[in-house]
């Protein structure tokens, strides 16, 4: 540890493991993480207010010199960025975690290659049953698979860690949705680059709060 935490990261729960991994790997003891529930992914309209509440609670402690959001826009249609701008908090660049894991250029190429791609991360593979199957009601109404995924062609598994168990689970998820399977290892480089940028970016960019990292 490098001393007491002075930077607070507010992240999506779906990224918690990877953010902690990055912090520990790089010995960034000055960073502390707090997360919002990952299932807000299915209810993104609640994300901006939930983030605002976290930011204000953190500011009230007087404990942090800076706060950053490790969150994609995640379907908030720009409302998350509006809240972050009002609160003076920067976030990692990208529309969603798939983009900052894969990197914008690679992600755009994948989307162009096949628009009907369902992206899974380690987290989404690990909790596929809870978030996708139960979250979309497919456990109760399996026939709705066509309504949800009728236009999808493939699952693209963006893996953060090399883990054969997760890889097999991801393949099983694709079979369950009757989709083709593609594996693209990404690691956590996108998150690391963002966290590494803090000391310079935070002081240099001032009000230009959204950092384009991915």
């Amino acid at each position: 540890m490098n001393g007491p935490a002075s930077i607070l990261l507010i992240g999506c729960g779906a990224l918690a493991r990877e953010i902690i991994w990055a912090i520990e790997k790089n010995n960034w003891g000055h960073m502390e993480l707090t997360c919002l529930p990952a299932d807000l992914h299915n209810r993104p309209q609640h994300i901006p207010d939930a983030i605002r509440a976290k930011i204000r609670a953190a500011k009230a402690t007087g404990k942090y010199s800076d706060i950053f959001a490790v969150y994609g826009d995640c379907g908030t249609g720009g409302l998350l960025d509006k809240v972050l701008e009002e609160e003076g908090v920067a976030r990692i660049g990208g529309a969603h975690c798939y983009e900052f894991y894969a990197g914008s250029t690679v992600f755009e190429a994948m989307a162009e290659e096949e628009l009907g791609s369902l992206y899974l991360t380690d987290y989404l593979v690990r909790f596929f049953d809870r978030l996708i199957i139960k979250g979309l009601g497919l456990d109760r109404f399996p026939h709705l698979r066509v309504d949800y995924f009728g236009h999808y062609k493939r699952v693209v598994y963006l893996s953060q860690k090399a883990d054969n168990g997760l890889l097999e689970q991801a393949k099983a998820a694709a079979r369950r949705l009757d989709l083709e399977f593609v594996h693209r290892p990404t690691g956590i480089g996108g998150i690391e680059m963002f966290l590494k940028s803090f000391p310079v970016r935070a002081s240099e960019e001032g009000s230009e709060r959204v950092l384009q990292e991915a």
Partner: protein
Amino acid sequence: MAENDGQVDGEDDVVLAELNDADLVAQMHDDLYDGLADEIAEGTNILLQRDWEPYKVLTEALVEGMRIVGIDFRDGILFVPEVLQSANAMKAGMAILRPLLAESGAPRMGKIVIGTVKGDIHDIGKNLVGMMMEGAGFEVIDIGINNDVDAYLTALDEHQPDILGMSALLTTTMPYMKVVVEALKEKGIRNDYIVLVGGAPLNEEFADNVGADAYCRDAAISVEIAKEFMSKRQGSAAAVGMAAQ
């Protein structure tokens, strides 16, 4: 079925044909809420056999039932899977009514071309809106998913609708709505259409920014907004007609 058959506990097993009209319609509202497609098809047929006009079956049994579903979705009591179940049940009724409605010359509210924008393959919301619009008496031309400007312009030219509806689920695709609206402006036809936009990440501010006429938060609201605009449009047309006389 013999009397009381299947009613061991005195509940659940309702024989639709034995209900009077009011109770049958109320039961169909419940069945729509529960997403029971077979029961909705059966109830629809029973009402038709009782000489109900197809339009009356549509509005009083199906659309009213879906209105209730829409309210509970808006209030967070029902969620997307349940609404999809209800929609599929309504489709079962619509499949029976659609040809009859065409024959019987049911009232037409207007015509809408609706499609998901370029880069986006999501159509659950669009399909719900299309179904509710059809239920409300609109002629719906659904041009599907991943529509570029040319696809929209071609559909508008071919079908000459009153309304253009655009849908997007992704933050990354919703800006394309502005591209379409700008293309309409460039061609000088923007004001020929009521432009409605919808989709989970959208909001009213966004709709204003892209130059749409209105943001539609959900399927039920879409119908209300479309009716309101059509009413204004018809009022304007009448006023222009009177002024010309």
